């Protein structure tokens, strides 16, 4: 692919998502601050693409220059999502309310149930010798954990998944921007209506779940308004259902094609923590995050102006040779790994501690039950752009051996 794609279509197309590394390396070398006249589905006007680790690092940590408000792609929402599209200082209050529910301590309390669920799902296909890992594990595993945490009914999972896809991957022709907007808007209205009803229910009969906590927890002595709770729920449906699925897809697709790496983890599970960090770096499933420039700034000699939109290419930052020695190699024992797979700065992923635990437990349980697996013969994987899911992900494995 050319170093300077004429439009954003190439930069976020499906071809690129399978292996963005060569294109991103060209970008970092030739045009680390690339200005595109337009980017499909990314609002009106131009957009600036940051690809170097150093610049992405700066942008993540300077919300007074790179704001998260009104920055996002159209995701069908009526108001800014909380806390994703709120800047400091207001942002901090929301995080103080949310952080304890997602802290390492809170995650420790969930681990037993998480492990049981993983084992149960794996048992469902272990005797068959093949499975679609995306549909049979990577999708139900994080979704079930998330719905239990929120206190939402499992039977509704297909509906939540349909919402997620309606927002993130609307099934219309990629050039049909109005069509995509309509699908997103409709889906958005369904999401608001559903959670509105859940809020009524929890106000009437509180439960021990996150939905109730949103309604009863206080920030500096005040409770959240109904709209604020809705604006969190909207984000959680997207953030909680998609990203761990994509990460599991990326990790297992990699290990299924690199038997020596898989075998090292099977032989020595103590390597899994490092492997999860390294594979998150190498794969960076959330390829980039959007921002709105609110103060003029010069990066790599290029002036970026207030009012411009920006995309911070996390995937490119995480494979930048200037920060990572041997950036194109997977090294489970990497000494220095300051990756941004979970973003960074104030908006560091709220779910990162939970997500890491889910990935670790998934690898441990899978390798305990199915130590050997590979891609189904003839399988051709397709990675979705933006958030890199692999659907389907057919793998095969010997049965019986345990």
């Amino acid at each position, binding site marked *: 692919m050319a170093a300077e794609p004429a439009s954003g279509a190439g930069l976020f197309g499906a071809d690129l998502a399978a292996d963005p590394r060569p294109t991103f390396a060209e970008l970092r070398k030739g045009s680390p601050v690339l200005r595109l006249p337009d980017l499909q589905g990314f609002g009106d006007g131009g957009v600036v693409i940051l690809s170097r680790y150093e610049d992405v690092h700066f942008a993540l940590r300077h919300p007074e220059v790179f704001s998260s408000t009104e920055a996002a792609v159209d995701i069908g929402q009526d108001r800014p999502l909380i806390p994703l599209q709120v800047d400091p200082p207001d942002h901090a209050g929301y995080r103080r309310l949310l952080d*304890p529910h997602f802290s390492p301590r809170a995650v420790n309390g969930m681990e037993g149930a998480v492990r049981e669920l993983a084992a149960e799902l794996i048992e469902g296909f272990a005797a068959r010798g093949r499975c679609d890992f995306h549909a049979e594990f990577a999708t139900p595993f994080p979704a079930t954990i998330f719905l239990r945490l929120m206190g939402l009914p499992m039977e509704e999972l297909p509906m939540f998944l349909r919402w997620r896809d309606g927002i993130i991957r609307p099934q219309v022709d990629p050039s049909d921007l109005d069509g995509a907007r309509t699908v997103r808007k409709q889906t958005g209205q369904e999401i608001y209506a559903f959670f509105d009803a859940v809020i009524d229910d929890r106000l009437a009969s509180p439960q021990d779940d996150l939905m109730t906590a949103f309604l009863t927890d206080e920030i500096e002595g005040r409770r959240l308004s109904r709209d604020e709770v809705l604006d969190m729920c909207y984000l959680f449906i997207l953030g909680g259902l998609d990203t761990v699925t994509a990460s599991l897809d990326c990790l297992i697709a990699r290990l299924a094609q690199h038997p020596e790496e898989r075998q090292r983890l099977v032989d020595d599970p103590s390597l899994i923590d490092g492997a999860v960090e390294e594979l998150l770096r190498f794969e960076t499933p959330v390829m980039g995050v959007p921002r709105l420039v609110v103060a003029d700034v010069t990066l790599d000699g290029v002036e970026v102006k207030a009012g411009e939109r920006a995309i911070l290419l996390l995937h490119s930052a995480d494979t930048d040779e200037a920060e990572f020695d041997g950036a194109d190699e997977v090294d489970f024992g990497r*000494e220095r790994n*300051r*990756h941004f797979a979970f973003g*960074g700065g104030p908006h*560091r992923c709220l779910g990162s501690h939970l997500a890491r635990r889910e990935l670790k437990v998934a690898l441990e349980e899978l390798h305990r039950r199915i130590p050997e697996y590979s891609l189904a013969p003839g399988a051709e994987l397709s990675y979705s752009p933006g958030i890199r899911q692999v659907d389907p992900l057919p793998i095969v494995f010997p049965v019986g051996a345990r």
Partner: protein
Amino acid sequence: MRVVVDPDKCVGHGRCYALAPDVFEPDDDGYCMVRHYEVWPAVAELVRRAVANCPEEALTIED
């Protein structure tokens, strides 16, 4: 050798307490607390590793 965390920079990635749990621990929100500022020889390597893995450059070693 001493290690300090800058609470204005720490955003709770948790890399430090995962790598060197004897020296760092999460507070109730998942942000870094230093349990022992004075680093003893047996954990020095792990502490260096933790510092090298903090994406926010929130940790510093003072010799």
